């Protein structure tokens, strides 16, 4: 779909205004998080986790969690702006673009943002010596897959709500719990069964688990295939949901 490349291009032109600040914070944020959690909290977790230091154990979770945060952030307020405040989508819909081009181009930009953030974090983690295996580069495609599993359904949600207070609700009641219970800071095994099922149902834990196997150089086992398929299912299902919601808003 070439037209969606032009839509991506538009979002990149827009991003060019703020890319320095954006890349800078993509580097500083992981730096602070690593210092605070990895060294600070890690100092208390003297025994390490699953046989590795707390920092090494936690870094892949943080990268996946950051990818998820960026994905959700890009699929909420900016999408609302494109519908409601700046009305970018309506301008695009008047051009010879199809709904799929408009949606596809914007989702591609969101994934670009996810990739930049994950790469920056990976770089900082490498600087800290927190990556135990060359397989760590696999964290990038994993982050993209996790990003895809989130941007599409979240964009669908944003396209369906009438005001940005619903976005705050999403943050508080879905994204925050997901970040807490997806094995980023502690293993999900220590959660009660009900919460463990919540972690398994949401996309983030799968991203965390796959990333962790990659940076620690562990064999992810045959379950990894199912995890990849599960994330793909979120992405594909989200794409169809978002296409439907976008069409409802743009073709009236």
């Amino acid at each position, binding site marked *: 779909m070439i037209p969606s490349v032009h839509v991506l291009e538009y979002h990149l032109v827009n991003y060019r205004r703020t890319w320095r600040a954006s890349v800078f914070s993509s580097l500083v944020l992981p730096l602070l998080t690593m210092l605070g959690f990895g060294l600070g909290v890690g100092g208390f977790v003297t025994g390490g986790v699953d046989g590795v230091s707390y920092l090494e154990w936690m870094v892949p979770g943080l990268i996946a969690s950051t990818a998820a945060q960026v994905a959700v952030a890009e699929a909420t307020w900016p999408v609302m702006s494109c519908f409601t405040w700046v009305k*970018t989508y309506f301008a*695009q819909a008047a051009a010879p673009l199809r709904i799929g081009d408009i949606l596809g181009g914007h989702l591609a930009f969101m994934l670009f943002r996810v990739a930049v953030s994950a790469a920056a974090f990976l770089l900082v983690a490498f600087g800290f010596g927190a990556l135990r295996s060359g397989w760590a580069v696999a964290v990038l495609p994993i982050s993209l897959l996790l990003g895809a599993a989130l941007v599409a359904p979240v964009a669908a949600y944003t396209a369906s709500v009438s005001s940005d207070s619903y976005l705050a609700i999403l943050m508080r009641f879905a994204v925050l719990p997901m970040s807490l219970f997806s094995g980023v800071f502690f293993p999900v095994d220590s959660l009660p069964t009900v919460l463990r099922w919540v972690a398994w149902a949401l996309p983030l834990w799968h991203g965390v688990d796959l990333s962790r196997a990659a940076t620690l150089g562990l064999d992810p086992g045959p379950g990894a295939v199912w995890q990849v398929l599960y994330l793909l299912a979120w992405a594909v299902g989200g794409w169809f949901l978002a296409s439907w919601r976008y069409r409802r808003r743009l073709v009236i």
Partner: protein
Amino acid sequence: MNSLIHARGLIKRFGDFTAVDGIDVDVRPGEAFGFLGPNGAGKSSTMRMIGCVSPPSGGVLRILGMDPRRDGPAIRARLGVCPQLDNLDPELTVLENLVTYARFFGIPRRVARARAAELLDFVQLGERAGSRVEPLSGGMKRRLTIARAMVNEPDLVLLDEPTTGLDPQARHLVWERLFRLKQQGVTLVLTTHYMDEAEQLCDRLVVMDGGRIVAEGSPRELIGAHSTREVVELRFPTDDQGTYAGKLEGIGERVEVLPDRVLLYVADGDGALAEVHRRSLSPSSSLVRRSSLEDVFLRLTGRTLVD
């Protein structure tokens, strides 16, 4: 069929509400065509169907000989759209707005830049090419939106209330630019509820009310068919202008009583005013003017306020 827009029995429904109720329209190449009507008359719904972002609920619609239901992108590639509310990107520069938009039409970047520069000169924004859009005035933004609508060298330009909300200077500048486009042979389709705008720009127009077309023709023809040549406006020193209605009977074709004045629709305004004085009626003020499209509009769509 060489109509750029061809509609027969065109219908748009939203649930139980019928916004456009079976209209027939033909727009020919090179003409400036207007949709007039009060709020809620169905103008914007019609424009969205023509712009291929809103599928018709019934009837026939052909744009540039194609079917919007099937050929939406191909049609939109040859349309220029200036929406009612500006949807420019406020964070991008004036130039970037045009270039990024041109890319949606698959126009190569180099061509897009050259064309954008030309268009900015045309809408007198050449000096602002590098400034962000956000601080621009309403008139400048509207001119930029018009420039954006021209970026693909369209066969047909759709303008939804192009001067609503602009101050008089800005309106006149927009009119002048649109008139230039018309002279260059660009086909314009616009909606408006400003009668002076319709008289200035439109070769032909339809008046819509309640989703239907209630009149059609050139501004001259419409005035000829639905009003008189002149109108005499009289104000009487009383709370109830209606008491004079009977006494004015027979002067001209029609007497209309408003809360604050009485209108006489006549062929000869001065003659009618002389007759008023001959009947020893003494209005506190009187005005003889030519009949305008506004008189036609109010006659056809009523004086009731539509919000």
